[in-house]
């Protein structure tokens, strides 16, 4: 018979749970509203989601304040871990989600947004990601990961096209495999150390001096493979282009940002202690993976004929680029990771949104996908402002100064340099040049070719909220350099105080 455990509410530190709870409550609220009165307009749900996300953000900010004052917070039997990384990642997640959700307000009617479930799933997913980043416990990470993923699969499928189903099935199946690998990896580490808490594992492993290196590596491999899938590192990336192509541009943009930041945080928690404890193998493997991912994804992006697929490969490449921060593992690198991802999310969301506003309900004759390059041919002559904005996002993604992403690149390559990774720094830099090619390709199409089909409307799907998002992304891309310094200081402080 188990003894009754007396747990005081204070020791649970419920505050750590508040942000996720808000998201969950929001999701439930949406479902309840739908139960009470069906057939409400999507704008209602968008705004409800928005409200809850705002609350969520407020809560995250609250815990940020607590963190800044008191340092890392633990809660719920130490399962919850609210450190700097968790807070930063949550901020990115919530802010990016807030920028995504208005994209539902398209002028054309799309299937998925008419279901309140979509928004509920969305909020559940956010809660999942938040759990994932706010924990040190492999169980909770696993649960968070799966909550988020299992919410995401239907969201893709809700787009209601055969490509979307195909994408969802592919993503789902591979996700299931990844889940299996994660579970196996956790099991190995558990078998070795008797704990599923990362800091405990680290402590136990360090105590016996990594005597069972072989088994540690087996566990690491399994976890690595699982996260490589989530972060779309080559060769675990194969789902990315298909899933991006199959889902709506908006969701694809979202997927290239939020799930990955969650993945990065866990990867940082898991792998950095290993690297710092001298698991050379992991360092080597990560080095190779980072380089291969960056380079190969860029190379594949070059030969794409569809802009969205191109952007998919490009986001794979960006992920590889950022993964180098985990490899380098210095405070500067980890700061760079968040900085880069925050800056990246604006440009990337902007680019995907541009695709989203130009998205027709039906494919034009002669087009095999939604956004082939030819579609943008001569765009500058018919709609100069859209073309300029799109070009702006492309140049930002290419890392051209002074646009936002450049500063992230600069800082991250700088981290590589100060971390002593000279060759890696060069590879990272040169990859930007390779990437330049395919970003330019779109610019070439838009500015230098003649329009192909008359009356191509690039704003077919536009609405005020979409335009607002694009405007925000554009302004951010141009002027965010003004905020880079405070961001570095803010992020750097959080990262440093979390011990990374």
């Amino acid at each position, binding site marked *: 018979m188990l003894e009754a455990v007396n747990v005081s509410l204070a020791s649970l530190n419920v505050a750590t749970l508040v942000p996720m709870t808000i998201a969950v409550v929001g999701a439930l609220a949406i479902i309840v509203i739908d139960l009470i009165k069906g057939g409400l307009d999507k704008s209602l749900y968008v705004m409800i989601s928005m409200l809850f996300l705002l609350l969520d953000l407020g809560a995250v900010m609250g815990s940020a304040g607590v963190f800044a004052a008191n340092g890392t917070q633990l809660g719920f039997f130490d399962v919850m871990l609210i450190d700097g990384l968790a807070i930063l990642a949550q901020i990115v997640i919530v802010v990016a989600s807030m920028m995504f959700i208005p994209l539902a307000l398209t002028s054309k009617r799309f299937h998925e947004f008419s279901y309140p479930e979509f928004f509920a799933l969305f909020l559940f997913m956010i809660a999942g990601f938040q759990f994932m980043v706010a924990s040190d416990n492999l169980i909770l990470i696993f649960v968070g990961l799966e909550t988020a993923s299992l919410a995401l699969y239907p969201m893709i499928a809700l787009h209601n096209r055969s490509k979307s189903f195909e994408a969802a099935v*592919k993503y789902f199946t591979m996700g299931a495999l990844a889940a299996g690998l994660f579970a196996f990896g956790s099991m190995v580490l558990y078998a070795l150390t008797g704990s599923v808490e990362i800091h405990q594992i680290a402590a136990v492993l360090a105590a016996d001096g990594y005597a069972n290196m072989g088994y540690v590596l087996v566990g690491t491999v399994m976890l690595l493979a699982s996260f490589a899938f989530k972060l779309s590192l080559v060769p675990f990336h*194969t789902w990315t282009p298909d899933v991006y192509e199959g889902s709506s541009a908006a969701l694809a943009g979202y997927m290239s940002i939020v799930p990955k930041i969650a993945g990065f945080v866990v990867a940082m928690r898991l792998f950095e202690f290993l690297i710092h404890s001298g698991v050379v193998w992991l360092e080597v493997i990560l080095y190779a993976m980072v380089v291969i991912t960056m380079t190969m994804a860029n*190379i594949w992006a070059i030969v794409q004929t569809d802009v969205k697929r191109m952007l998919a490969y490009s986001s794979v490449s960006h992920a590889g680029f950022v993964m180098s921060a985990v490899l380098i593992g210095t405070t500067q690198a980890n700061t760079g990771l968040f900085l880069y991802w925050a800056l990246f999310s604006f440009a990337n969301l902007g680019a995907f949104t541009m695709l989203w506003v130009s998205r027709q309900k039906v494919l034009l004759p002669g087009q095999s996908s939604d956004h082939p390059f030819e579609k943008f041919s001569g765009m500058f002559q018919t709609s100069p402002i859209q073309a300029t904005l799109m070009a702006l996002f492309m140049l930002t993604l290419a890392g051209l100064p002074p646009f936002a992403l450049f500063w992230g690149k600069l800082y991250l390559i700088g981290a590589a340099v100060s971390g002593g990774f000279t060759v*890696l720094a060069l590879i990272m830099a040169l990859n930007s040049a390779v990437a330049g090619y395919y970003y330019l390709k779109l610019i070439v199409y838009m500015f230098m070719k003649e329009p192909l089909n008359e009356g191509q409307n690039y704003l077919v799907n536009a609405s005020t909220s979409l335009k607002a998002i694009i405007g925000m992304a554009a302004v951010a891309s141009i002027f965010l350099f003004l905020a880079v310094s405070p961001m570095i200081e803010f992020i750097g402080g959080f990262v440093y105080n979390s011990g990374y």
Partner: protein
Amino acid sequence: MELYLYTALFAPIVGSLFAALFGMSKKNIIAGLVPSALLFVSWLASLKLLIYILGGGEEVHVELMTWMATGDLYVPYGFIVDQVSVTMMMVVTTVSTVVHVYSIGYMDHDKGFNRFFAWLSAFVFSMMVLVMSDNFLGLFIGWEGVGVCSWGLIGFWYHKETATWAANEAFIMNRIADLAMLIGIFLVYWNTGSIQYHEAFAAMPALDTSVLTAMGIFLFIGAMGKSAQFPLHTWLADAMEGPTPVSALIHAATMVTAGVYLVVRANPLYDLIPDVGLFIASLGAFVAMFAATMALVNRDMKRIIAYSTLSQLGYMFVAAGLGAYWVALFHLMAHAFFKALLFLGAGNVMHAMHDELDPFKMGDLKTSMKWTWIFMTLASVALAGIYPLAGFFSKDLILEVSFVEHHYILYTVLLLTAGLTAFYSFRLVALIFHGDDRHTENGVHPHEAYNFMLYAMLPLAILAVVAGMIFKTPYYEMVTQVLPAVEYHIHNHTTFWIMTIGTQLFVIASIVYAYKKYAKAVKVDKKVESGLLYQLLYNQYFIPQFYEEYFTKTYRELSEMMWKLDMKVVDATVDGVANVFHGTGKATHEMQNGNLSTMLRWMVIGTVVLLALAAAFTFGQSEGVVKMLSGLGAI
């Protein structure tokens, strides 16, 4: 005196710019008159300066303004009028004034009349800059300036392929020499710290001989280009494509003598390096002979005179090389007068013969062109060095110099050349003015040139006669204040008289032979003409062909090759790098074949590979790997 200096210097450029104003409009006589008048003004100013200097005046030295100043380098626009430059100024302004006036008639019917005077006066200006500068770089301005004017004037009739080709050839060949000249200037600067004449020369005696030798050689190579010395001589004969007054002024009297002037000007340097001087003298003697032989058989009137110019330049270099700078300068002056006269006469003939250049198609012109005949004969006598004309005093002096300096081989060569000179000069005179009338059959009815053209030539004719006799003593006294004063006297009177009279007789014999051979009916000796020697001379020792074949063509082909290299190798490499990426993408993007099974397999394979690597790492000793990675900066 500064005012006169500036007048002498800038009057020509004012004339040039004035004529240039009319450059693109119809012929306007003003465009010829004004530059000529301004040149006359320049001549007057030069004369004033000459009188001043002759009267024992101090050298006039002015600095107009700074040109370049950086680091330790300081180059002003500085001008100096001393005994040497005033001589040159007189020569230049005299000949050019004459040529300008003459050209008003000569270019009468040419639609580029105005342009011609713009170029011609610009040339005079450049030449004045060249001789009046007080530093090497100022000299170089003039040096290049005359080069470019020469380019414009040789190619004056730019519709003619041969003319433009010759212009480019002249410019480029001169450029080759100019490079050496620049290097010479660099050497002067870095070793003496200055490129002002007086400072640089003052510093030179302290320098190492090897450095001085290099300086001397490079500067002389520069001089070789301008003065068309072997092997950079081919352009001069081709330059005859230009209008004849141009040949008279530029390619006989002034520009080509710039090289001699440079050596004379740099006498403190060449005095320190007698070995180089001997080389210059030897090359000069060689060129004298070499050019004279080519003139023997040539059938182009102007080319014959051009070769004669070349030959006389050789004489001057012999004198300069042997340290007899004043002699070289003296011959330069005398030569300018009679050679310009000769060319202008040839111009008259050309006009009369409708641009026919082959003397074998002329003959018996003395009847219709009496004054031209007289002038050209006078000039030829002077050139041959017959007493008491100018050539005797200057050219025979060079023979004496080589004798006195005990360079008997040079002496012999020069003596022989004197004979050759007399022969080809009178071969030309005889063919043109004597013998049968060979032109009427071609429908040419010659007429004498305008009177004012003949009057214009008159001063030159007078100078050709008296320059040697009258000017020698005052000139010597004046110029030796700055140039080494060496009197070249053969102390043994018997030897002196034997040599002098012997030379005269030898020359006269050559003249007589030429007259005998060509003044009557012209017989063509087929046997001689097909002989190797004749062919060799007639084809200018095959040097132009050689240059065409081995330099021009090679350069063109090499350039084509380089272009191919640029496109097919250098650029292809760049594109290749890009294509590697693109190609890899094309070849491997099928790894994503859209089949879920394949995707899953990739994942499993990835995991298995990682496991295998982990196993390999655990079991195998991985020090090598570690080492390799630390190289990458990974550890």
